[in-house]
Each structure stands twice: as structure tokens, then as C-alpha cells.
């Protein structure tokens, strides 16, 4: 049995064609994802809000001018891109033409600043870029007015406080109504879902290894299988040793792809890399079981089985959301409305396993997902065993 395991392992490791789908494919696809999502991140980078100001005497005399200059200072945190207009009419024209998102003006010396904006979007369902820019400008103006009023109130009621920077800072910081916090132990990133779905597909493609090896053990599937069946080693032992080698190779391929995705592509796995590797062992087991079930199908040659496997992997990956945002929405919809059906999809189950490690603090959900994968593997192995249960064949 040890020799069967060793030599099957040797044979599989040296069959380079098997690596195309099991190893090279996930590496190539994850590299493509890396470039795709890099562009996507670039598109989502914040651009300073194009802002007009009416640079008249009242503006120059207003402290708000200094605030705007500060917010428009070049740098990573530049909020506003300011364009000066000598008159209110010219500023309004630029606003109407959409050249600026809003215009700040100080109507008269000592007055509070005003904000002129174009009418917002009425669709309501989504928030457009103009709406966001308008909100930013409104927040700038409101914050200035609120802080100015606060300062005036402090000066009137407790002038001594103005000399205490600590108290002033406390007073102004209290005005921040929101605080950034994360509900999960990792920073949620939409793009990680695609990589997780990719591992689902890669694992299913890895089933080709078992398809190949199982075909080489069955007398009705290959001359080599017939020859091996003549030996004095029982079929169960032969299969166990063969499948153990398949599982190891599948797992190694997935781990290699994982290391590439983690350390070259730089995908975040929430610091749970070792658990991911353990999860990949379960994914490789499912791949092995699927390959066993498929490989045991009688009267279908290896090429046809590979074709069937490719089709199955592509279809199941569709419902794991691999092919883009619409597919991800489709996968989510199916998961919400047909949870059992979605749960039967090994590609989705593998993606969800990574997801559980990424989003949940505990490991309970991960353990449940691994258990589901184990159950799937057991069922698929049983299907394969049904096909292979015969010791002899009516025809070869």
C-alpha cells in the first residue's frame, strides 16, 4: 500500500498537464484579479471636491477663507480644489455649467459663509458623485458655522477657557458626531470575495487529479487499471493509497496557490493563514471525492470526464460569484432564497469557508463549513464507491 501511495504520488507529481488547472490556473486568474482590483481601487480614490469661491473683499476679510485655504492645501488629505471667481455671477455660471460642485461666498464682512450648490439628484436609490461632493461642502460650511458659534459662546460665557488649549480641544472634538470603527477583526474588503470564490473553482479543477488517478485504477477504464487489478493487493487498499496521493497533490497545489495569493497578490486572510491552509485540506478532500465520483463513471474516457469536470466547475463557480459583481449578486440571491441549494455547491462552500475566517471572530462558523465540506466529500466518495463496487465487469 505504501508503494502504491509513493509511486502514485510520484506519477502525479510528474504529470505536468495536471498542474495547468490545479495550480497555474488559480495563479494566473489571481494575478488578473490583482490588476483588475488595483484599477478598481484607483477609481475609488478620493478626488478633491471642485469648489468655487467668490474672492471679493468680504471673502478676504472672513476667517472662513483661511479654513478653505487649509482644506485646499495640496497633500494626501486635500479635501477641496478651489477655483476663485472675482464675482458672484461668474461663480454661479461655473456652478450652472457643472465646473464646480459648489460655491462658497461671504455676502458681507463679518457674515457667515454661504454655500451655493446645483440641484441634487432626485433618483434617491443611489448616491451620485455630485451628491457626495455637495454633502462634503455642506459639512465644511456647517462645521465652520457651528465651531464659530461655539467659539463665540465660550468667549461670552467663559473667556478664561479660551486660554486653555486643552479645554478648547475637548470642546471642538466633541463636535465630531461619528467615529470610525470596525465590526469585524479584519477590515472588510469587497475584492477578497473574488479570491475566495477563486479557491472554490481551483479546488474543483483540482478534482482532475483524482479523475486521472482513478481512471488508472479501474480495469474498465484503462489497460493500466486492468493490469493493476490483476495484482494481489485488494481494490480498497489500492484506492485508498491512490486517493491519499491525489489528496496530497491537490492540497499542495491549493496551498501553493494560496501562498501566491497571500504573499504575492497580497490578499488579506485576516491573519488566519494557518486555518486557511487547514481549510484547504478540506477543500482538497472534496476535490478528491468529486474526482473519484467522476473518474468512476463507466464508459466515458478521461478526456470526456475532464470536459464534464470543467463544465461543472465553471457552472458551480458562477453560483459562487466568481465572474464579477452581477454573479456575486446572483450568488447572494440564491444563497438567500435557496440556502439549501447554495449549501450544496462545493465552490460556494469553499468560498464561504474563507469568508467565515475573514469576518467572524470565532472559529465556530469555520468549523461548521469544514464539516459541510467533509459531508460533501463523504457523499461523493460514496457515489464513486457505488460505481466501483464491482470486482469484475461484464465487459472491458
Amino acid at each position, binding site marked *: 500500500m505504501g*508503494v*502504491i501511495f509513493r*509511486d502514485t504520488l*510520484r*506519477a*502525479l507529481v*510528474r*504529470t505536468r498537464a495536471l498542474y495547468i488547472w490545479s495550480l497555474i490556473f488559480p495563479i494566473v486568474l489571481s494575478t488578473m484579479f490583482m490588476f483588475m482590483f488595483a484599477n478598481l481601487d484607483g477609481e475609488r480614490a478620493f478626488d478633491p471636491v471642485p469648489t468655487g469661491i467668490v474672492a471679493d473683499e468680504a471673502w478676504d476679510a472672513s476667517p472662513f477663507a483661511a479654513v478653505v485655504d487649509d482644506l485646499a492645501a495640496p497633500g494626501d488629505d486635500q479635501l477641496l480644489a478651489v477655483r476663485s471667481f472675482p464675482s458672484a455671477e461668474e461663480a454661479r455660471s461655473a456652478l450652472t455649467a457643472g465646473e464646480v460642485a459648489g460655491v462658497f461666498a461671504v455676502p458681507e464682512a463679518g457674515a457667515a459663509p454661504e454655500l451655493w450648490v446645483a440641484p441634487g439628484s432626485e433618483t434617491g436609490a443611489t448616491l451620485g458623485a455630485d451628491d457626495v461632493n455637495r454633502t462634503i461642502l455642506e459639512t465644511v460650511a456647517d462645521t465652520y458655522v457651528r465651531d464659530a458659534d461655539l467659539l463665540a459662546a465660550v468667549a461670552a460665557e467663559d473667556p478664561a477657557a479660551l486660554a486653555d488649549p486643552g479645554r478648547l480641544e475637548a470642546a471642538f472634538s466633541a463636535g465630531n458626531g461619528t467615529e470610525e470603527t470596525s465590526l469585524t477583526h479584519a477590515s472588510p474588503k469587497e475584492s477578497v470575495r473574488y479570491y475566495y470564490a477563486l479557491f472554490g473553482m481551483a479546488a474543483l479543477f483540482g478534482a482532475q487529479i483524482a479523475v486521472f488517478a482513478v481512471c*488508472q485504477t479501474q*480495469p474498465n477504464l*484503462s*489497460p*493500466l487499471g*486492468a*493490469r*493493476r*487489478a*490483476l*495484482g*494481489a*493487493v*485488494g481494490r480498497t487498499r489500492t484506492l485508498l493509497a491512490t486517493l491519499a496521493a491525489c489528496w496530497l497533490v491537490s492540497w499542495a497545489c491549493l496551498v501553493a496557490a494560496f501562498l501566491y495569493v497571500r504573499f504575492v497578490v497580497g490578499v488579506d486572510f485576516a491573519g488566519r493563514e494557518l486555518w486557511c491552509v487547514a481549510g484547504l485540506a478540506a477543500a482538497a478532500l472534496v476535490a478528491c471525492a468529486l474526482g473519484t465520483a467522476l473518474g468512476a463513471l463507466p464508459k466515458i474516457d478521461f478526456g470526456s470526464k475532464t470536459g464534464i469536470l470543467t463544465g461543472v466547475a465553471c457552472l458551480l463557480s458562477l453560483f459562487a460569484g466568481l465572474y464579477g459583481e452581477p454573479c456575486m449578486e446572483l450568488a447572494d440571491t440564491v444563497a438567500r432564497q435557496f440556502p439549501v441549494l447554495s449549501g450544496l455547491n462545493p465552490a460556494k462552500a469553499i468560498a464561504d469557508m474563507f469568508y467565515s475566517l475573514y469576518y467572524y471572530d470565532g472559529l465556530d462558523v469555520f468549523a461548521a463549513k469544514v464539516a459541510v465540506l467533509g459531508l460533501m466529500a463523504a457523499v461523493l466518495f460514496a457515489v464513486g464507491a457505488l460505481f466501483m463496487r464491482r*470486482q*469484475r*465487469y*461484464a*465487459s*472491458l
Partner: protein
Amino acid sequence: MDEYSAGPTGPARAAGEAQAARAAVGPVVAVDNLVKRYGDLVALDHFNLTIEPGEIFGLLGPNGSGKTTAINCILQLLTYDKGTIRLFGEPMAPTRYDLKRRIGVVPQNVALFEELTVRENIDFFCALYVSDRRERARLVDEAIAFVGLQDYVKFRPRKLSGGLLRRLNIACGIAHKPQLAFFDEPTVAVDPQSRNAILEGIRAMNERGCTVVYTSHYMEEVEEICSRIMIMDKGRSVAVGTNAELKAMVGVGERIFIEVAALDEGTRARLATLPHVRHVAYNEPELTVHCEQGAHNVSDVMGVLAAAGITCGRMYAEPPTLNDVFLEITGKELRD
């Protein structure tokens, strides 16, 4: 091929011991009334076969005659509808690993791991029968030497020529030193040197006590090495016996070849009416006379020619071949 001894423990048995063993166990292969159907097609029709220890048994038959089906049934790869199969005196079953351990098979199709080297392939197949690592290493070394692949142990099969590949195929089948070996057309597509080496190897195995079942379409090979021959057709055994016995079963006699400068129709007609003459052909200057078995065929023919005043040149006669017997028994019509 080099010296090779049969039996897992190694040393060659003395002839007397082998004889005693034969008497004790009876036939190595005993197939009784075997019936195998593929739907409406009867592949084996109440097929019987008995092979005694120490034989090189030739199994002949046209394509589709049931040779491979019979072997696959004996080896329990195929189910069968009726009949019994006993090997070494024991009923054969798919899980009779004790019996399988004593059997070696060299399939017609080269069935090897393309990704393993010559040595690794032999070791793998040997390990299906021998679990002890040291003994296996020794057996593998012997098998490599036996088929003459010492210079190719690190080669993978795709790097080997057709002849070397066949020899590797044989080594994988017999490395564990079986007591019963099936060779299914082992010399297909090999050059004369490799064929000779393979046949010598089989003979050497047999001399060391291994019973051999040999199938081939090369009649001269079977004639050369087999001690007993069965001709199968349409799933049945149609003739069994030694080479001489088979030739005696059919009417085919020798073919007489004579160089004659000219042959008139009258003389040709007289030759055709001679007793035991089946066919006369003349292709100037060679006269060919096909005869049935007879004691005086050559002298009778020469007498007719002398009476006609025909001067003869070179003359020779060929005894009937196994091929003649085969065609006589199975007919000359083409098979699938």
C-alpha cells in the same frame, strides 16, 4: 535474456521435484464448461481448458475467437455466465489474492506508468505481489537483468524503443516470479532480435518451472516454443494437442516445389489426379504441388514427371506448418 528462476523464493527446482509437484496439484489451469455472453453474442461457448504444470501452452485463434475473453475470465477480470475455473487446484475468485500472487500477466497492450522510470515501474508492479522491500529489490534487479534493461533503468517508457518497451512490459509482469504466466501477444511490433530474446526468456522461465500460457498470431513462434497448442474459434476449442498431433489431425501434407523448364497441360492434369494431391500450380519455372498426408507423395510426383520426360532442376519439399493447420481448421475467410 539472462538466467531467470521461477518461484518467489528464488532457486530453481529440480526436475524431479517439479514432477512430484505436478502430480500433487493436478492441472495448473482447469476451465470447465465456461460460457460467456455479450448480449446475444456467445463469446465463450462451453469452453474447456486444461493446462498441466510445466507446459508452454499456446492459445491460437482468429480475431474474435475468444482467446482474450477466456484469459480475462480466468483472471477474474470478467464475469461469466456459467462454468468453473480452478487454478492450482483451487477455485479462482476475484479476492483469491493467494492465487493471484502466483500468477503473472504480460498484457498485449503495453500498460505502464508513463511518468515512472523503468525501475520504478517494475518495482511498482512487483510490489503488487511482494511486500518485503529487500526481496522486492532483489527481484527487480533480477527482472531488469532478465530482460536486459540494465542500461535503461532511469529511462521513462516514452524514451524506450518498441522492443525495449515490450521487454519492460514483460519485466513488470514476471518480476515477482510467478508460477503461472500469461503472455498475450508479447512480440507484436518488435524486431527479430527482441523477439528472439523474448522467446528465449519465456523458454528460460519455463525451464525453471513456470507454466506459460502464450497467445500469438505468429504461428512460427507458437510452433517453436509451445509444448501444447489449442486452436479456438467462435468461443470453442476446436483442436488441442502437440504440434505434431495437430498436424496429424488435418489432411494437410507437404508442399513440393520443383523447377521445371516447361510443363504441358497433360502432365499437369496427371499430377492433379495423383492420390493425396490437392492442388497443382505452375508459375514458370516453379511447379508447386500441395499434398495431403501420404507416404509416397514426392516419389509419385517425380514419377509422373519422369514418365513425361520432363527434366527437373532444384527440388525441395516443405512439411505442413502450424499456419497450414490453423487455416485448415479455422478457414480462410477474413475475420474482424
